[in-house]
């Protein structure tokens, strides 16, 4: 009986992950508890819940591992500010203040806020945590491992070989050469928020042609050896805290898109932005494929485990599969920095504590690794709040929900434990009929209020995906966790097919999520197609809901028609009047 806790935070998304004898029993992002999107504090509430879920106290935990080396990161910051004197003045003032007042004291904070004995606190490093999250969570005994993100301590891209002896670091690309930071700089240029709007660039790309590839390659330059470097005159992330691209980039590509302004791909201006997005996406994919070739040549292995924020780019993942050298690809659902917590814990278990891998039981039982609420609790809540509701027999929930969907209602769907990672996978989802062409606009106008370049995903019963989607071989695992786009081969689902004829696919297995699978099966029985529109259950700018109270608060502020909370069914009209 051994417990290991991994933590990430103080930079991007903070999270806590608890391992029991090397297997993940609880994993959650702090934002699901604090309700602060991308919460980058210390994962105090997530940690507290992990322990409560397992019925243990901190005294039972052998090691608590932070996902990176704070001092090395501080060193990188100082070095790049020295190199960029005097224009780094404001970044220095802000950054150093933050570091001196809190980030350097992360160990003290872990000890004090979480009650951990100082001798039990360990530190992984950033890309090693990413790599461990990909490799040790995978079902493969041997694999090439690639981690690509903005930046960790110094590394921005790392190449590993994973095998029985653990993870062997083969080489790395260092700051300021960074695929992730360049992608983020273009995210800002295209008018979106850095560390949040990257997937919007990906969505926008579908409306454009990559006719600025040459220009973008001046920024992210391919190298002879298969790696890349960055022309630092176009970007400012290495010396500025609030601006990530320079005037020179605007000279190269024209004026940047104004944040929050509309996007209309039929205008010349809108088309230009879409074309730039498509070019950025293409150059990113090329860079990934090139570095994957290097890794393939170095390892000779045909399985790739991928992690880091860039691994959440489901379009690039497809390019890696179809144009890259590897036969199959594995990415765990929280590939970004939240996943660093999981990697830190797995690294500790296998490499610090020296435990061998056993591949017979999966390390990651499924994506539902967060908190759940039982029907008794939900029922008491609804009664206390005087919300009219219907209690369904558990075995009729899927059938009833399927009927609602087919009749054109938009559902809030809260079932079981909430998901690990940024995607809703049928535990905290908004569901609707993907055959209805007006559904996309309806959901956008009444619920999500989001821009048209953000497509909704289709969930499909495992086994039926081949009827509608062109899933590349080796992408099965990605499709299970909605990390892959696939060309759509039918006209039946206008609400979930993106402008370029693709969809971000979610394949549902009965074993992973029996209730949701039953719902899809029933929809299939009624319509002939076991496919449902699935998007995350949240309002714009808010984290995905986790608890029933949050679900209700979101439901009554939205245009959703029906809410399923476990076996409880609540209608929007007439169920609540304060």
């Amino acid at each position, binding site marked *: 009986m051994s417990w290991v806790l991994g933590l990430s935070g*103080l930079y991007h998304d903070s999270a806590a992950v608890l391992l029991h004898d090397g297997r993940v029993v609880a994993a959650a992002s702090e*934002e699901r*508890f604090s309700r*602060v999107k991308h*919460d*980058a*504090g*210390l994962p*105090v509430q997530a940690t507290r819940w992990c322990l409560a879920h397992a019925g243990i106290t901190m005294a039972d935990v052998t090691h608590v591992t932070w996902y990176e*080396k704070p*001092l*090395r990161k501080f060193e990188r910051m*100082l*070095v790049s500010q*020295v*190199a*960029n*004197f*005097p224009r*780094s*003045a404001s970044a*220095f*003032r802000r950054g*150093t*203040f*933050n570091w001196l007042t*809190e980030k350097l004291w992360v*160990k003290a904070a872990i000890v004090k*806020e979480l009650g951990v004995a100082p001798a039990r606190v*360990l*530190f992984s490093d950033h890309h090693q945590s990413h790599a461990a999250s990909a490799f040790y969570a995978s079902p493969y005994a041997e694999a090439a491992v690639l981690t690509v993100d903005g930046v960790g301590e110094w590394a921005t891209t790392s190449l590993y070989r994973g095998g029985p002896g*653990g993870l062997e*670091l083969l*080489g*790395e*690309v*260092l700051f300021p*050469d960074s695929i992730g930071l360049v992608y983020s700089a273009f995210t800002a240029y295209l008018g979106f928020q850095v560390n949040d709007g990257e997937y919007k660039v990906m969505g926008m790309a579908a409306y454009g042609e990559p006719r600025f590839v040459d220009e973008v390659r001046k920024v992210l330059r391919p*190298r002879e*050896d298969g*790696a890349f*470097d960055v022309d630092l005159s176009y970007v400012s992330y290495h010396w500025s805290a609030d601006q990530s691209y320079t005037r020179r980039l605007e000279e190269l590509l024209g004026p940047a898109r*104004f*944040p*929050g302004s509309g996007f209309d791909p039929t205008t010349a201006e809108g088309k230009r932005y879409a074309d730039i997005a498509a070019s950025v996406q293409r150059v990113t994919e090329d860079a990934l494929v090139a*570095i994957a070739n*290097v890794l393939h040549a170095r390892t000779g292995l045909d399985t790739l485990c991928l992690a880091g924020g860039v691994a959440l780019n489901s379009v690039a993942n497809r390019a890696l599969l179809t144009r890259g050298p590897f036969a199959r690809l594995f990415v765990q659902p929280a590939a970004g920095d939240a996943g660093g917590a999981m990697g830190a814990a797995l*690294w*500790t278990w296998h*490499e*610090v504590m020296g435990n061998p891998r056993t591949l017979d039981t999966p390390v990651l039982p499924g994506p539902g690794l967060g908190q759940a609420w039982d029907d008794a609790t939900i029922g008491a*809540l609804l009664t*206390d*709040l*005087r919300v009219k509701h219907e209690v369904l027999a558990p075995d009729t929930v899927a059938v009833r929900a399927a009927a609602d969907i087919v009749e054109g209602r938009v559902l809030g769907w809260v079932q079981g434990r909430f998901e690990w990672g940024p995607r809703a996978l049928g535990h905290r989802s908004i569901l609707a009929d993907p055959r209805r062409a007006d559904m996309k606009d309806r959901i956008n106008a009444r619920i999500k209020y989001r821009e048209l370049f953000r497509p909704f995903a289709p969930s499909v019963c495992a086994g039926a995906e081949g009827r509608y989607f062109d899933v590349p071989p080796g992408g099965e695992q990605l499709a299970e966790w909605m990390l892959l786009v696939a060309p759509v081969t039918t006209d039946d689902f206008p609400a979930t097919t993106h402008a370029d004829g693709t969809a971000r696919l979610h394949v549902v297995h009965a074993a992973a999520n029996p209730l949701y699978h039953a719902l899809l099966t029933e929809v299939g029985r009624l319509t002939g197609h076991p496919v449902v529109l699935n998007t995350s259950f949240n309002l714009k700018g808010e984290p995905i809901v986790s*608890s029933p*109270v949050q679900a209700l*608060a979101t439901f009554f*502020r939205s245009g959703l028609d029906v809410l399923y909370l476990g076996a409880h069914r609540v209608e929007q009209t007439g169920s609540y009047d*304060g």
Partner: protein
Amino acid sequence: MTISAANLPIWLASWLVWKIVPGRAAAKMAEFSHTEAGSGLDMLAAVEETTRPELRARYFRHALDELRHARLFRERAQAWSGARGRTQAVLEDSGFIASHGIRTTESLFRQLGEREFLAFVWVHEKRGAEQFDIYASLLGHDAATAAMFAEIAKDERFHIAYSRAELDRLAKAGDEAGVRGAVFKVRARRAWQLWVRLSLDFGNFMAGIWLTILYVVLLGPFSVVARAERPVGGVVPPAPRPAPADRAREMI
């Protein structure tokens, strides 16, 4: 609302904020939006944590109100900022501030307990309503804004009334001293926190000056030496590292 000796300072301050500094109004609306959203979350946490069914329903109603106010203020901010984009920046900044740093993560309800939480709600709602009154009269010339403030004021009256009624009920049930103590504590803490914030702001300001001096005298000379070389680039071989068990305790 009329100007009196008691509210003169806040009148003056508000007038400055809204009227003199251009572009401040939209940014202020964005700030309000964040504050309201924050109280909405506090109230939702209270829904989860209270054991009293009737209060639970009140807290939930209250939470929905605050979240709606947050949306109204955000929409106002966006309408006012127009093409200047300043509000977007403020919204993002306050989002950034909200999402970063080591914070107290205990919910307000858990920190205070039911009685003091109610006192907190009452004191803060009352104060907030007074402030909004002032803003409403300053901005009354704009019909949409006046309507928004009127709608919000109606909700705030409910928040004040139910929290007061519950405090009165507790007092009548024999806990008069406890209720008075709780209200006193909340007010004292409010004053104390204002002071702490002022001194923190001052501290940050001084730290900024010191760091700038440090930057110039320390990093300046260094930069002359260090500027020249940039790392070779490409895939570099890893530096030799100690075994995992040996390096796991190091922060560097």
